[in-house]
């Protein structure tokens, strides 16, 4: 693991030697369990996720949406790997992933063009 910044130092504590999540992935708001330890792989991919703040709207015109481009994600190739997760309806070719219990989100990203890729943004979840 690269440790050039504080962020990646923090990150390395979340990743086991085999590149998987060493901790449970939990909803930041309600603690609902999204992934069990050792079930997802750390992946670098730049993905735009609309803001989790209440006011911003998820609309199909991305230009008007407030959000972040995030690059560190937990990747799984099968949706049944998730303990609990919700999928929004389609926004273009994207489905956003949300907490299955309190529905906060988006916490992740899935493209309908790649049925074997599901991403959960590290910055949008807790690890414990």
């Amino acid at each position, binding site marked *: 693991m690269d440790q050039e910044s504080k962020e990646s130092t923090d990150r390395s504590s979340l990743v086991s030697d085999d590149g998987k999540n060493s901790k449970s992935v*939990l909803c930041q708001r309600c603690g609902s369990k999204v992934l*069990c330890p050792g079930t997802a792989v750390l992946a670098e991919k730049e993905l735009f996720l609309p803001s989790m703040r209440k006011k911003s709207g998820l609309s199909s015109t991305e230009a008007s949406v407030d959000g972040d481009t995030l690059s560190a994600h937990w990747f799984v190739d099968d949706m049944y790997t*998730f*303990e*609990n997760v919700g999928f929004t309806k389609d926004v273009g070719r994207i489905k*956003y992933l949300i907490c299955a219990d309190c529905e906060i989100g988006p916490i992740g990203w899935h493209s309908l063009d790649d049925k074997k890729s599901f991403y959960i943004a590290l910055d949008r979840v807790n690890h414990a």
Partner: protein
Amino acid sequence: MDPRYDIPRRAAGGGGGGSANSSPALGAQSRRRKMPPRPADFKLQIIIIGSRGVGKTSLMERFTDDTFCEACKSTVGVDFKIKTVELRGKKIRLQIWDTAGQERFNSITSAYYRGAKGIVLVYDITKQETFEDLPKWMKMIDKYASEEAELLLVGNKLDCETDRIISRQQGERFASRISGMRFCEASAKDNFNVDEIFLKLVDDILSKMPLEVTNKELSNSVLSLQPEPEVPPELPPPRMRCC
């Protein structure tokens, strides 16, 4: 919150059961890697159907306060959820589809029904017409759903008892006329009986299954992310809204 529904969550950090939990002194970090994550034992698809406004979506939710992300909620909406329950020592992944927005009977594609192992049919105990719609929903179930699908009739909005129009007995009577249909009343608003609905349904589904079959066949019978695109000619395109 029903603790039973939350078993996976409370086991945070344990990666599912079966670990060396008898030795609390062991370093969790070094140990953890040696336990392979426990996969789900079963995967089941459940759909929630019923007339407009009966509270189908609320049955999928845990919290009904307004603090969740409005962006997801009202603009885009939730398509389906993966939820994990543990029952009879098995870990079961549920894929739960809410058909809200497709309430006109014929606008729900047959694909939703076809793969469902459990069907939750909801009416509103304060609205006569939602109860009168039940036979029409049953027709759809008869037409498209697997004969083995477990059926559960839910009279929702028990929190509005003072406005009740449909008696508990009426609901019971309707369910008793359909073989194998279970009945309960619930309040999604108060989270009363909501988790039980899913647990009950899953329990029924599990008890019907010969155990050897389940693991192999089920994992393959699970629907993919989207219902099959194929739509029978007599049905309008999926996701049709009424206005």
